[in-house]
């Protein structure tokens, strides 16, 4: 399986400089031609940290309540990475969901989830999440520093 370079795809999606999750969701909504909803889902999560479900008319990204804001954003970015990667027509990672989650997403067209395996797609979207977090965290003070 050949996956595109993450940095190149992040640059294509967000350009140079800083960005925000809101901007990324807006851009992906345009690419996918469906609204993307971020849904905090309070059921049992086990070892899962987030998942996304695509319906006819929308894409939902589910994530658990988290004490850590950084980790919550990272997990959402991971799922947004899946959405972006799928829009590039690459293979999907296999979901691993609980019964409740499967019921919730019964009429979904496709599902991917964020767990922590060492699959190439999972590594790609995890790297995507890292890159996006850099661009998001740089938002307040982004300025090139070529002399430091």
């Amino acid at each position, binding site marked *: 399986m050949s996956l595109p370079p993450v940095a190149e795809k992040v640059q294509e999606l967000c350009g140079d400089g800083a960005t925000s999750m809101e901007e990324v969701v807006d851009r992906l909504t345009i690419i996918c031609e469906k609204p993307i909803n971020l849904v905090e889902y309070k059921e049992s999560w*086990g*070892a*899962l*940290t987030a998942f996304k479900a695509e319906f006819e008319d929308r894409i939902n990204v589910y994530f658990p309540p988290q*004490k*850590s*804001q*950084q*980790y919550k954003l*990272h997990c959402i970015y991971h799922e947004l990475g899946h959405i972006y990667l799928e829009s590039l027509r690459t293979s999907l990672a296999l979901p691993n969901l609980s019964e409740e989650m499967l019921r919730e997403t019964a009429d979904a067209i496709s599902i991917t989830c964020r*767990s*922590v395996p*060492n699959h190439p797609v999972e590594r790609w979207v995890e790297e995507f*999440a*890292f890159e996006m*977090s*850099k661009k*998001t*965290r740089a*938002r*307040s003070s982004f300025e*090139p*520093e*070529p*002399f*430091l």
Partner: protein
Amino acid sequence: MKLLLVALLTALCLLRIPSVVKVAEARASWVASVFGLAALYVLGTVTPLATIDSYLGGINVANLLQAIFALLAIFFFNDSVRRLANVAVRWTYYAPLLSIPIMIASFALVKDKAPTSADFIDYRMDQLAIAVYSGSYMLALLFTVLRIIYMLRHKARGLYATFSAGLLVVAAAVSCHLTYVLLFHFSPWHTFAEAIGSWFDRLFYAGLSVTAAGWLILFLSKQIPKLRLWMIDALWLTGLRIRVHADHSRVSPAWDLFNETLENGVYKSLIVLHNYQRGNLTAFPESVQGRINQIEAKLDAQV
């Protein structure tokens, strides 16, 4: 003055190695400092000029190398300023580098290039080839330095102002040398030309030293607080990742510490440790989790 510049550039080269590994945009300015050091070295600042030139045939090739290295140093410095000021690359961007083949060709045409001398150019200023060699070198330098000053016009605040101040002195030095070349070669006022030309050395190295000193102070003033803020946390989190085997690869924690900026390394370690806890449905002892929470709060506060 040359030794001061060697010391400043050496400090910048060595201290900035971690930045160069981690941040791609920091590389051009580092290459500039390396070329600057190379130019000063072949000038005979550290090893005697005669020794260096003897390895190169004893015909003042060291002088040509010094000019090429200095031009490349200024060019790469200019590239970093372009990134800082977010200026687009236009066709004129590479124009100063065109002077390198002109310099090589005109140097080749110089008659009686031996023996090795620090005043190689001055002794042969009556030759047109030397005027072209020296003139094209100085024109390229002047063009690049003035372009840097222009690009810095909106950024020259705080320590970046020392860049502009130093480079203005360099521009003055280069203008003196150009005037010297033109007057000496194309007018009868040789003594006047030499008097103007004699200002080149002291102005050139004084200007570059001011710029390099400003750069070193800028670097230290920005990096030391970052080191104090994140270094201990980065090391502690890396140690924790190694201790609990949170990564697939044993090399990953150390690689992240080496390859990422300290803040990004801390972020990555926190995510890896969260993944480890989630994936293994486990929790760290309260004291460890407390420290992780503290670091996370510090990271949140930076955004």
